[in-house]
């Protein structure tokens, strides 16, 4: 599903974001990528959605070599990978329903498909009752669930969540992680980039630990190893 071979990312002449990363993620896996600030977690996430390109190595997603992906093909990649960020990135003037529908609208989907898909994904994240509320009228956890719903509208095989609980309290964090687990149970691959020790230790899923741009640990049922 996701295959990284000898990936390095160097900024400028000597700032190493990632060093010689070899990684393979199978379909349906729930993978936590952990590490301290500057370890290379976000760089890895940006490479997966082609926001940045590796300096060396090869990245394949579902057999598609995206190492030197053309700009015009990036939208197709982003429809195959749902993305969730820490800062929500919701449009304040749009309702929950409109925010989710927006991803389909800008991809040129028909109104009929939008009317069918949006209620379905809102149900998956448990927000069907709050479809007509605006972002400021719902909690942080609910806002993040809207973002997850938006990421799901294209039925992506992979969901990439970069610090999705970074701005949330414990209860909202638990809600969001439950939603991610539910999505994983449906068969989607979930890549969770986080530095939340409790979340990682509770999930007991595969944990890849990064430090100084290198993979220092990759455990099938791992725990959070880094000392804060």
């Amino acid at each position, binding site marked *: 599903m996701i295959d990284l071979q000898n990936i390095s990312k160097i900024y400028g002449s000597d700032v190493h974001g990632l060093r010689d990363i070899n990684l393979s993620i199978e379909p349906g896996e729930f993978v936590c990528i952990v590490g301290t600030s500057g370890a290379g977690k976000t760089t890895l996430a940006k490479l997966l959605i082609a926001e940045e390109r590796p300096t060396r190595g090869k990245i394949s997603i579902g057999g598609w070599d995206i190492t030197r992906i053309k*700009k*015009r*093909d990036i*939208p*197709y990649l*982003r*429809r195959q990978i749902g*993305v969730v960020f820490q800062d929500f*990135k919701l*449009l304040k003037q749009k309702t929950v329903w409109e925010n989710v529908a*927006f*991803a389909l*609208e*800008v*991809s*040129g989907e*028909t109104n009929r498909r939008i009317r069918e898909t949006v209620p379905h994904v809102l149900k998956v994240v448990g927000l069907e009752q709050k479809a007509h509320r605006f972002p400021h009228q719902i909690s942080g956890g609910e806002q993040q669930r809207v973002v997850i719903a*938006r*990421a799901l*509208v*294209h039925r992506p095989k992979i969901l990439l969540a970069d610090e999705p609980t970074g701005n949330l309290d414990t209860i909202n964090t638990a809600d969001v992680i439950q939603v991610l687990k539910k999505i994983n149970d449906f068969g989607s691959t979930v890549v969770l980039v986080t530095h939340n020790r409790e979340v990682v230790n509770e999930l007991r899923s595969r944990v890849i630990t990064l430090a100084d741009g290198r993979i220092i640990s990759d455990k099938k049922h791992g725990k959070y190893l880094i000392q804060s």
Partner: protein
Amino acid sequence: MFIITPVGRVISFAVKNITRNAWIGLATVLVLVLALLSVNVLVGVNALASSAVTILEKKIDVSVYFKPETPNAILDQARSYMASIPQVERVTIMTAEEALTAFTERHKNEPTILDALNELEENPLGATMVIKARKTTDYPFLMENLNNPQFSFAIENKTYDDHSIAIQQVEQIADSVRYFGLILTLIFAIFSALIVYNAIRVAIYTQREEIGIMRLVGASNAFVRLPLILDAIFFAILSLAIAAGLVALIISFGEPYLVSFYDGEDPGLKSYFVDNLLPLIIAQGMAIIIIVSLSSWAAVGRYLKK
């Protein structure tokens, strides 16, 4: 791979952009209108200059006054000879009687002149031949031909109303106006491109969050780009309509004041714009749409490269 984007949705996004950035749009339209007006001033000056030249050219002719006793046979000979020259457009003869009638009519309110005329027993006026050349440059050649010994002895006088200096002056003024008008138009075209470029940059800035999310969730570059280009094209079309209205208004109010400069004749400004309405609108519309499309394309392109 190619993404087919529903036209309706692109238009709906474009309309939203316009309503959100109405003031920037207004400023853009204002500059585009000024650019179009400068082009139309140039077109108008050309039309006025060519109309002035035509009027002056119409006034040029040679009048040949024959002696009163000249027989009709000589007059006919002179007319036939001059009419046979290819450079001659028209020859008209006014007989002595017709000349007298015209003279009396012209001076009907001047009793002194009419009394003096009555004192004479015979018609003092001779026949007059008026020659009109096809080109103003042919008159010197025609004047030479009037020296034909078959009828030159009967000629009492010749007058050649030479307006060539006036024509030259009109053409020189028109050339200068065209030259400076062209510079002005180019300056306005560059300003228009820059203003549209900046208006689109500001529109992108005000919607950077939305555009960022669009790209994140898989919107194609075309979907990001097209609404903004449509906005610019809308501004161009609106400017064209406003400029056309203003030009019509200026001509309607201004043309009557120009009549006195044209010796009471029609300056031909309104008729020129009416006759050439479609080509003028198409040419200016195409030019302004191309300018705004390219500048907005460049503005969005710069953002999309980031």
